[in-house]
């Protein structure tokens, strides 16, 4: 919840104090290059998956291309420095550097692929009507209003975003806690010996547990009977798609897009991790 609120407050500040022109000036004109830059934004502006939705929703309302927004949203929870450090710490003695580098690389690659793919689709098919319907640039008042009034407006935006996204967060967290307590997690243990099933089952487990990307590596590291490629799938898929996020994404994106994104990421991450398992990197 603190991270969701942090994202909402950042959203309020962006709305009130970030001119639309600045964002378009900062991003390269070439759409593919803009997606690439967006992928690395998570390193500079680290936001975890709970806080990212209000930020991305606000940035897209301010004119950030959807392809860039999706890339930033998927990459930021994985490429942020806290997550890198926690992955290193959790996998100490289990190929920590390899796991951390692969998690960063695969997370970034998949986010870029998703972003580039999004650039071929109309944003009307991706975004919710409420997000589409707002031009978002109300900065006609920079010189008209006092700092207190501008803070008042930023607080209003932050409050609205917190409560709007909070509804989805509460429903998602409730669904995740229901599944994570009611489903026997030991039923997947026999699947550990079969790489494709192990990868699919750990991606499913990551979705059910809905653990924050800053701590999920500590959970993955304890799944000692599972191959490392399946743990990598857990660490890349979980921060992009989990039960809680499925509801959170609903605050900004259409249901059809969320469904397609979930299936696409499951297949792409699953196939890449299966390939890594076949390569047998000596883990």
């Amino acid at each position, binding site marked *: *919840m603190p991270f969701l609120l942090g994202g909402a407050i950042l959203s309020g500040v962006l709305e009130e104090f970030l001119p639309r022109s600045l964002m378009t000036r900062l991003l390269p004109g070439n759409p593919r290059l803009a997606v690439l830059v967006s992928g690395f934004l998570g390193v500079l502006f680290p936001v975890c998956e709970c806080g990212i939705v209000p930020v991305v929703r606000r940035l897209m309302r301010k004119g950030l291309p959807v392809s860039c927004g999706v890339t930033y949203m998927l990459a930021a929870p994985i490429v942020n420095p806290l997550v890198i450090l926690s992955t290193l710490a959790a996998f100490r003695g289990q190929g920590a550097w390899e796991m951390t580098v692969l998690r960063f690389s695969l997370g970034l690659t998949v986010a870029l692929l998703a972003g580039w793919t999004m650039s071929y689709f109309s944003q009307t098919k991706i975004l919710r009507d409420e997000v589409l319907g707002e031009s978002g640039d109300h900065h006609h008042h920079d010189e008209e209003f006092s700092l207190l009034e501008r803070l008042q407006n930023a607080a209003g935006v932050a409050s609205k975003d917190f409560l709007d996204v909070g509804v989805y967060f509460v429903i998602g967290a409730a669904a995740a806690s229901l599944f994570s307590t009611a489903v026997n997690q030991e039923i997947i243990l026999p699947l550990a010996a079969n790489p494709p099933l192990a990868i699919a089952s750990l991606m499913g487990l990551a979705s059910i547990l809905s653990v924050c990307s800053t701590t999920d590596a500590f959970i993955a590291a*304890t799944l000692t009977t599972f191959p490392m490629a399946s743990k990598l799938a857990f660490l890349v898929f979980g921060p992009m798609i989990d039960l809680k996020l499925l509801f959170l994404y609903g605050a900004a994106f259409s249901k059809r897009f969320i469904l397609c994104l979930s299936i696409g990421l499951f297949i792409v991450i699953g196939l890449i991790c299966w390939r890594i398992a076949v390569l047998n990197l000596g883990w």
Partner: protein
Amino acid sequence: MGFYHRITPLRDAILLLLWGGVIMRLWSKGELSNYLHPALQPFTLGAGVLLLILAAFAFRGLTAKNADSHECCHGSHDHHHGSLAGFVAKTLVLLLPLMALISGQALQFTITTIQNRGVVQDLKSLPAANASEHTQNQNPTVPEASATEGAMPIQVIDLLYAVQMPTYRQEFEGKQVEMIGQYVPLATGNPKGDRFQLVRLFITCCAADAKPVGVTVQFSRPLKLQEMAWVKVTGTPVFPVEGGRRTPVLEATKVDQCAAPEEPFVY
């Protein structure tokens, strides 16, 4: 514009006040530790303060007389007003967690949750164990015996470390120890019916990732305890090899029901 459209700003201000208020209440009563790792509690306290500040701004916005100031854009420029059903549903969804927190229902971990998550008796299956400061060469601090009864107060997790570290194990073998944990009946591997598990929940981040850790307790006298009841167990730890691996077993001399500790989780 309907009545509920007009009261939406008031509803939002009240919700922010309630969310901030409940967090501050949990903090003032020391109850944040029932949900969060100590490292995350300052963030949540900060969130509570920020929510109260946002609530103050929201109430200020309600009383602002100047209708043509920023009012055109209050509420994130969102001119999409939902239905009455949406208004009611959003209000309820945002109130329900607060009601669960105030009622204390959010604290309950049932025996089903413990069984579904599986009780960890091997340190390698415990989150963050690899990052722990406890290594083969560096024993955890051995607690001193309690002055009153001569029993050494230890945590469940101490015995899991002792299984892996022979030198640490020697500190406990043959000595009286006392532990507090939750009573979980042992349905399998208990042919004589004289064993149960003493369980604590280990968290890395928050209650969402809570993992039960436990040791087997052997106690020959009959017990009339509810599942998940808090108990204080006094006894002597032994470390037999059972099922091909070394396992911690506490041979208990006394099992008493007790109050839940101030910090229900172990870290």
